[in-house]
């Protein structure tokens, strides 16, 4: 079985080697030799290419004719936005887009709210049960939902939440919140307790302290939570396709109607994928400055 992990040198050799020069790189403030500079930038350029290539590739294919996926050579000579026009005008795409915005937006708001309150409580208050709570957050992540989807469906059906945005939002929130709460707890831990003290001295309730003093300071953490919740909802297929009717299809489900049992419309699918990517990338660009600080605070203090 170990042989399964052996990567063909053609594919990941370059990647796997990147950690090799690590010992030198810690110094940071020192001057680099030209050779080291070339190696550093060379490695990063290769890695960036590997990271960005699949995305660039579907963008490229989406600009070509219908058969572009099988003969990419034809794309450059036939650049057009036809696929995009078709996706936007001849399908229910705008409708799906709206549904996705509602679901992803709802998940983001709910996710941030739940994660922040729970994270703060666990960070600040040594109440009975806080350890178990953190542990149960982790346990929810172990839950193989794909296999237990039937009980979940029946549960939502009982509450009339099938084919309903709220049902989907709640499901996504369940997926995203445990990790986010963990992350937020870590972030709140880095905010000095003196601030809470100050709030109490000023006569604020615990909620007031949280809302007026702590939340504004926790923006990077909240941004990462928002990003994470948004992505969870934005690109999810399995729940959405099981739970939602055609009036409430999200993008991920909608574009799968471009593929039938016998044939996939790759041209439409690539174009639609690119449009799906745009909001995700925008959200990503908005929060990416906060990503490193926000995520780590959560990670360091588990």
């Amino acid at each position, binding site marked *: 079985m170990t042989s399964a992990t052996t990567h063909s040198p053609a594919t990941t050799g370059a990647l796997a080697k990147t950690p090799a020069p690590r010992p030198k790189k810690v110094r940071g403030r020192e001057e680099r030799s030209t050779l080291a500079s070339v190696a550093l930038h060379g490695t990063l350029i290769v*890695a960036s290419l590997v*990271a960005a290539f699949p995305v660039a590739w*579907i963008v490229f294919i989406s600009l070509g004719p219908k058969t572009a996926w099988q003969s990419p050579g034809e794309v450059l000579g036939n650049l057009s936005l036809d696929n995009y026009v078709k996706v936007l005008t001849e399908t229910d795409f705008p409708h799906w887009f709206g549904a996705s915005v509602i679901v992803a937006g709802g998940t983001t708001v709910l996710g941030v709210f739940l994660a922040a309150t729970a994270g703060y409580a666990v960070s600040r208050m040594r109440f009975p049960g806080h350890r178990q709570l953190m542990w149960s957050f982790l346990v929810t992540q172990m839950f193989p939902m794909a*296999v237990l989807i*039937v009980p979940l469906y029946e549960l939502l059906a009982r509450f009339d939440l099938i084919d309903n945005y709220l049902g989907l939002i709640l499901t996504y*929130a369940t997926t995203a919140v445990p990790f986010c709460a963990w992350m937020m707890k870590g972030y709140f831990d880095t905010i000095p307790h003196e601030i809470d003290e100050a709030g109490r001295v000023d006569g604020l309730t615990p909620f007031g302290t949280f809302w007026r003093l702590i939340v504004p300071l926790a923006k990077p953490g909240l941004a990462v939570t928002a990003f994470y919740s948004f992505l969870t909802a934005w690109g999810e297929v399995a729940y959405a396709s099981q739970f939602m009717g055609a009036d409430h299809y999200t993008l991920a489900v909608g574009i799968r109607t471009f593929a039938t049992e016998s044939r996939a419309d790759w041209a439409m699918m690539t174009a639609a994928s690119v449009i799906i990517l745009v909001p995700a990338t925008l959200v990503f660009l908005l929060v990416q400055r906060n990503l490193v600080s926000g995520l780590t605070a959560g990670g360091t203090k588990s």
Partner: protein
Amino acid sequence: MITALRHSWQKYWYAWAMVAPVVIVLAVLVLYPLGYGFYLSLTNANEANVARDIGAFHAPATYKMVGLDNYWSILSGADGDFYPRLTWTIVWTVSCVALHIAIGMGLALLLNRKMRAKLLYRALLILPWAVPAFVGVFAWRLMLNSQYGVFNEMITAVGLPAQNWLATPFAQKVAVIMVNVWIGVPFNMVALLGGLQSIPKELYEASEMDGASPWQRFVNVTLPGLRPVTHTVVLLGCIWTFNMFAVIYLLLGQNTTGEADILVTFAFRKAFTGVSDYSGAATYGIVILALLLAFSTFYRRRQLKTEQA
């Protein structure tokens, strides 16, 4: 007793109020399916013998309790699939997480230096994280097409033989690991990068004054400084990868030998094609959960021990 309760309530009510929303949502949406799943795993319920009440058709439940039979049939190896799938799931998890951490760490170390175009590199390297998994898998599937895919064109251009990437079990395994590594590295890189930045500079300076080589500094300062982050990332990475459904299910399609299926995809395929086998699916679900719980408990305990040491 009651006064103790009241006291506890007065002291902690706002904390409980703040965690209540999460607890309620999770309790309902996670505990219920879990409890119900556990119950199903003790029965022989399937789609044909559960109670149904559909229009003019009414059928009472006719399934019965079978105790631990389902678990026994899986764990004794009688169904012939569990242990091979488990072995591959472990290989898959370990290789993915190892590569995630190794590559993520390497890139984080590089990005943690002063240099030009750092922000651009960082943005590009995090990009796969922003790509919805199904879009990423879909892009890879196009690229890995043995006949029309660009991947084979690229490797033949540098003189390597073209591969039928998604055909044989071995090639499939390499391909799914590759794609999952692509998807998962950014998260690990970002977490580790933040970890690096939180290591106080003074530690490096002190170590340098002691005449430590770069390698010694890495081993004695960086790695210990990163330990809390790596612990978390490894733990979460193992849990997430163990249950990573989308990559394998969507990348390989239906015409496979089943050798590249991990426990989750295997159980899904087995239980939900044709007449659904609810008890079988639930049993697999509970077994997976139990395995991960055991692993996490063990891992956390070991982690606590190293911290105390």
